[in-house]
């Protein structure tokens, strides 16, 4: 039963609002739907009639190709999954470990270390010296770690986590653990981390997205075909559709000349977009839940 509310908008305004939101919602969803449909369209139909929401002939050829011959694409998917899983895990550890000491009042130099991390959010040396350090000091170029290490530490997430530790975890619990003889590290592992699950989930979600969606690091630091992530393979194909053929023949995919010619490039291209979007859509309810929580956690002053 709907409660009567004198301050509700009129039916007419409600109708207009709904129309506006429906149009905008379509703008957000229709491009995804188009990609999905194109990926299931027959390649020849596309070459003759262009993309369509109502294709004359459906086909699974693109996914068939990816599964059977697209060794390079499968490999890229594997790299993306590896980067995302390992990166998120390591990043959460590094960030939580840094955030805990600077959240403790008994830690004398907490302001200094907070400032040290905070300043990195305000100023940077720019892309070029960063690139020089990565390639000439850390020698990350063309290693898998090039796509993981640079995102491990993030000032903003450190501040969010520090604020959570400082405001949500009761001092009395930490003190009690110390009286029981637990050291700082044990207190952190046994008492603090289990209480910090909400902030770990939220920050973890953002980090997962960063790694999953990243094309910036491979763009800067990866040149080797075997190390291309999914997003970066999409970058390469966007600039040169023939690249799809190259990498797959190099990876031992379609090495028969006839097979190479038959790659359904148009549909495979969109199938890759679908593969990149798919996991995000599937995990979406979870994402949204922690995302909104994250907004309120992040709203706490740093």
């Amino acid at each position: 039963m709907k409660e009567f509310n004198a301050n509700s908008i009129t039916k007419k305004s409600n109708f207009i609002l709904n129309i506006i939101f429906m149009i905008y919602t379509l703008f957000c969803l229709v491009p995804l739907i188009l990609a999905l449909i194109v990926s299931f369209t027959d390649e020849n139909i596309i070459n003759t009639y262009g993309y369509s929401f109502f294709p004359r002939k459906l086909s699974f050829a693109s996914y068939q190709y990816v599964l059977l011959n697209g060794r390079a694409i499968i490999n890229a998917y594997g790299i993306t999954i590896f980067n995302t899983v390992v990166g998120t895990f390591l990043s959460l550890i590094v960030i939580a470990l840094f955030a805990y000491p600077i959240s403790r009042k008994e830690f004398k130099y907490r302001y200094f270390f907070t400032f040290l991390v905070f300043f990195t959010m305000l100023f940077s040396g720019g892309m070029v010296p960063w690139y020089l350090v990565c390639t000439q000091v850390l020698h990350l170029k063309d290693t898998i770690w090039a796509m993981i290490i640079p995102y491990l530490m993030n000032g903003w997430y450190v501040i969010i986590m520090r604020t959570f530790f400082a405001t949500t975890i009761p001092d009395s619990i930490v003190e009690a653990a110390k009286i029981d003889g637990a050291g700082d590290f044990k207190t952190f592992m046994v008492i603090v981390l289990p209480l910090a699950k909400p902030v770990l989930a939220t920050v973890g979600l953002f980090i997962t997205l960063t790694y999953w969606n990243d094309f910036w690091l491979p763009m800067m630091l990866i040149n080797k075909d075997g190390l291309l992530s999914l997003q970066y393979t999409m970058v390469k194909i966007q600039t040169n559709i023939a690249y799809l053929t190259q990498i797959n023949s190099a990876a031992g995919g379609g090495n028969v000349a006839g097979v190479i010619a038959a790659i359904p490039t148009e549909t495979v291209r969109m199938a890759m977009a679908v593969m990149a979007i798919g996991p995000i859509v599937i995990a979406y309810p979870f994402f949204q839940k922690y995302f909104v929580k994250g907004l309120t956690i992040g709203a706490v002053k740093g």
Partner: protein
Amino acid sequence: MWMVVNYVPRVKKPVNKFSALIRDIVQHKALYIMLLPGLALILLLSYLPMLGALVAFKDFKYLGNNFFENFMLSKWVGFTNFEFFLKGPDTWLITRNTIGYNLAFIILGNIIAITFSLGLNELLNKKVGRFYQSAMLLPYFLSWIVMSYLFYGFLSVDRGILNVQILQPLGIKTISWYSDTTWWPLILIAANVLKYAGYNSIIYLATLTGIDEELYEAAILDGATKWQQIVNITLPLLSNVIIILLLFSVGRIFVADLGLFYYVPMLSGPLFSVTQVLDTYVYRALMNSGDIGMSSAAGLYQSMIGFILVLLANFAVRKIDPDKALF
């Protein structure tokens, strides 16, 4: 009682700051060890590049075996790189593009986001509202490269929906989207709004739902219309959040989204005049021309001005609401 437990007898006063630090490290060994991985990462990946930004004042050459040798052996050239960059034919264009686009993103993006949040707050059917929110937030989770593929579905010259399904059947001359500059300012702004408006409107909505209902009830008793309530209650209460978000985006006005400007136009050369921004310029100078001196000068020019703008923005925020300032 726990004060007794925490009591640490002082043997002697610390002689200086350094020995105080050593004492603290010994006392809180575990805390310092926990800091180490993150500390190493920011020293190497943030602070070392800050020092390395000095290459902007050098004629950087690969003369040695590693970065330090290269750095030491390269000649100091003062502001030559900056002069070279600032006198370049494109400098004005890319600065104008960067600032112009960011201003459009900020103004249009926020107007749309605020309008949406007000609308979402008033919808009669909250369930439908939640569906709209979910749909609007989705583009925020997609990368620019994925977005560029989705746009390609509509803009492709010989296959895209706009040309093939809309313009051709209507008998209108098709547009070569990826070489005609006319529409790109609009497309880039639309792309940016599409990606971030949903996200921003949810931030605003979070503030709106926190507004005390009693304020509105009092206004209704006074006979205020819906519109009057929005103007006199909602917007003033939202204004702090709006101003703060605006100021911080102004602080980032010199930073352009490389993914948006590089990949959504598919790196198309004919579009450079409307798609070239600072970030794409630096990237191209570094990766395509390998011009370390000039690209680092351009990068430092960008981050110095960005830094000053962030400081100014924060100063302004502190004037408005000290609690909301970052520092």
